[in-house]
């Protein structure tokens, strides 16, 4: 059966959908950072306050890679 329509467009949209799996990786990373922060904070609550900034930096680094996959999806959908 012959495929009709724009093959490049189809491939780009499938690729954009596949790029969204990167979000799962970012979710695992952010959850890992915050979960470990929380378990450490519950063991030693007095040291928790000073490490909040470090936690946010870790979240930012983990999340940036998920945002990259979102960017790839956007580029595939709109920048052709």
């Amino acid at each position, binding site marked *: 059966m012959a495929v009709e329509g724009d093959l490049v467009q189809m491939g780009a949209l499938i690729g954009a959908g596949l790029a969204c799996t990167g979000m799962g990786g970012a979710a695992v990373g952010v959850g890992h950072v915050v979960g470990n922060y929380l378990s450490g904070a519950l063991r030693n609550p007095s040291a928790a306050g000073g490490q909040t*900034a470090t936690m*946010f*930096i870790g*979240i*930012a*680094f983990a*999340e*940036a890679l998920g*945002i*990259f996959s*979102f*960017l790839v999806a*956007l580029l595939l959908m*709109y920048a052709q």
Partner: protein
Amino acid sequence: MASEAEGGSPFNIHPMDQFVIKPLFGDGDITWYTPTNATLWMGITVLVIIALLVFGTRGRAIVPSRSQSIAEVIYTFVHSMLVDIAGKDSVKYFPYIFTLFIFIVVANIVGLLPGSFTTTSHIAVTATMAMAVFLAVTILGFVKNGAAFLGIFWISSAPLPLRPILAIIEIISYFVRPVSHSIRLAGNMMAGHAVIKVFAGFAGALGLGAVAPIIAIMAVYGLEMLVVVIQAYVFTILTCVYLNDALHPGGH
């Protein structure tokens, strides 16, 4: 209602339409001097900041008024963040850090108003800020430390055979900094606003029975209020981290 959108997308509202830059007057071409909606909302952002800080600090009361409390809380928050991360000698760069923080946080919050335009959702805006930070920090590092600034790529606490490999990784991650710095902010803003618009499209398609999408919009909006402040915080705190690298390259 949904059947009216024939052929194209099933949503009445396209989620990316809100990011289109339009000229304020007429429909002409956009050149660098054209006043656009981005110009308008950036101006509104600056006016809000001026109003907050000028009127907030005008009274200088011992017992602060509400607006003075807000201004003082933001000021001390950024100040303690800078001193905690980049040390006491970084305080002379405080005006720049504070400007970055208050511009981003106010632009993000103003962008959440219904019908407004989020200037920080455009990579052109965030990349300008991130490149300014990157260039400033790199130049500052070389001015303060000379060639010793290159030591941040040569990690002396690592075993010697590992150091060249780590140096390559460090150099790559150093030059990815402005990219991730700008895309993180723009991507978060864009994604959050697009999610709200997608739910708004559901609500429009369902018509009167759109209770669930509207509740979802409210929930996402609440999350976005959190995200916009956290992203401004993250942008500023990463600037502080980079500044700390430039000022104290030894303390890696």
